[in-house]
């Protein structure tokens, strides 16, 4: 995940003014369309056409060979009475908890501690070192992370978690084979992977806070909590928005860890929409139905993004009006 680029994104949402930056000789800005051509063609072939094709497939029954059979809205009727479908979207809520709510809250606390306490009182180097530590899981390919976790939580006596618990006399447990531990392990992995991203982004954002603001507030008798909410949170709000948005979308789309750690099991208990669509495509060969799940997921992602962007824009407007 890009840290800088995404943090920068928050700062530069304003669009440039109307006229082109170079004085135009003739033909206005039309000539610039040539520069957009390669990008547009590729976007059309790789994103737009497949997306439309995918929506078309939701109205068909198809096993991937021959021509798709047009069946109208059947897939759409099926999906709303499909228990697995509802389970997968309910599990998305758990994924949001594990990839957005917990990492953002804990990340905010860790960033504030590292910046405010560790950085100030124990030196910037200690702070940077700890920040890098928290960030480390982020550079790990998710497939590798999944495999290591799968191995740690192996059932029986070879799993390292079971071996550790054996020291305390706790018997071996099949972590990934039953509920709710399978879901909890999956969530734990996601928290572990995600935590570094908010820590790093928030620490970068905290550099913007003028220390004199804190000193003034301290002189006025504000306690740590009051300073944190009144000063820190209000200044780094754009970053909180960006982190929440990008992580929410990532949580809705999560696939790799589920594929590697639990395969949606036990008995569909850790099913998520992305994995459900994938298994319909390539395991059960119900292409039309898989396409329907993927379409619902896409609509959800787009709706969530639009809501976020709107909320952020209105918050910015309010702030400007208040100043």
């Amino acid at each position: 995940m890009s840290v800088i680029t995404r943090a920068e994104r928050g700062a530069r949402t304003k669009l440039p003014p109307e006229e082109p930056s170079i004085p135009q000789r003739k033909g206005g800005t039309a000539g610039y369309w040539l520069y957009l051509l390669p990008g547009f063609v590729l976007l059309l072939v790789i994103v737009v056409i497949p997306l439309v094709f995918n929506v078309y497939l939701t109205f068909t029954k198809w096993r991937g060979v021959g021509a798709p059979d047009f069946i109208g809205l059947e897939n759409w009727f099926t999906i709303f009475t499909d228990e697995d479908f509802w389970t997968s979207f309910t599990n998305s809520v758990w994924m949001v908890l594990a990839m957005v709510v917990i990492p953002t809250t804990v990340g905010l606390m860790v960033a504030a501690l590292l910046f405010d306490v560790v950085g100030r009182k124990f030196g910037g180097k200690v702070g940077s070192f700890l920040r890098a530590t928290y960030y480390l899981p982020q550079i790990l390919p998710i497939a590798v992370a999944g495999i290591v976790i799968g191995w740690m939580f192996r059932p029986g006596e070879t799993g390292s978690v079971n071996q550790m618990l054996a020291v305390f006399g706790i018997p071996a447990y099949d972590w990934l084979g039953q509920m709710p531990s399978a879901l909890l392990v999956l969530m734990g992995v996601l928290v572990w992977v995600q935590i570094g991203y908010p820590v790093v982004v928030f620490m970068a954002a905290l550099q913007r806070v003028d220390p004199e603001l804190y000193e003034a507030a301290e002189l006025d008798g504000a306690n740590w909590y009051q300073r944190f909410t009144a000063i820190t949170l209000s200044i780094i709000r754009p970053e909180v928005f960006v982190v929440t948005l990008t992580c929410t979308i990532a949580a809705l789309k999560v696939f790799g860890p589920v594929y590697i750690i639990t395969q949606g099991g036990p008995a569909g208990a850790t099913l998520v929409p992305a994995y459900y669509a994938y298994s319909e495509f390539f395991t059960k060969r119900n292409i039309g139905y898989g396409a329907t799940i993927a379409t619902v997921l896409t609509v959800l992602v787009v709706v969530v993004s639009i809501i976020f962007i709107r909320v952020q824009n209105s918050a910015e407007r309010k702030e400007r009006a208040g100043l």
Partner: protein
Amino acid sequence: MTATSVIVMPANARRPRPRGGMTKKRPVDWLLLVAVIAGGIVVLVPFYLILVNAFKSPIDYATSGPFAFPQEIDLTGIQNFWERVNFPEKVWNSILISGTVAVLAVLISLLNAFAIGIGRVRGRSWIVLLFLMANLLPQEALLYPLYYMFKSVHLYDNVWSVIIVFTVIQAAFGTYLLASVLGTFPKEVLEAASIDGATRWQILWRVVFPITRPTLSVLLIFFFIWTWNEFLIPLTFLPSNANQTVPVAISVLTGDRLMDVTTTAGAALLSIIPTIVFFLIFQRTLTRGITAGAVK
């Protein structure tokens, strides 16, 4: 990992100034420090397990358990993985795919962003939104149609299928970011070049490109890493052993759960090394890129 700390260090960071009584350490500060360090240790546990077990023999693992240091350095786990997946081949596939994607995606982002940020074409806010949405979409919504398309043009099980897909997806994000960076490009420079008779093409390559190069190199590196770590698309489009990337190879190998623990640890260790090496090589480029981005 000092590399990551360099990357994320904002160049214009105002160092926390120790002043007055602020450096005085109260007991509660020590307590908080211990808490943050404890959290960091928890984060590091899986890495520790990878490191110590990669160098153990299976018998050593069985007798001493996962947390102990190896009794003697044993490389059979690493060697097993290296040979079973033909590791150099997988690393080369990953480098080829990620490297080509990074270069092509930066190129296309630059062309798009030139038209949007400097050319200010009509409807550009919609164009930016279109590219942004292309980046945010769940890949599953494109998966089967792309699978079908690649099969019909014989690009299925060919690294170019994955290269093309990620070029478009990464360029979509690059366009979004670069368009806003170029939107704030100093106007005087462009005017001066234009008065000197430079064409748009010359302005792009002789003025815009050199000045934005630091930002472009940061994008290049992130595109490389994001593509390196991708899983779903390579898993789907590159089924044969000879075309697999590092993450797919390790997941396929361990999927059968027959592999012993020390080989798993060896596999994980080998899979992290390229990423870490990459960070170490490019940390200076990254720092410079951020400096340039921050000064604007």
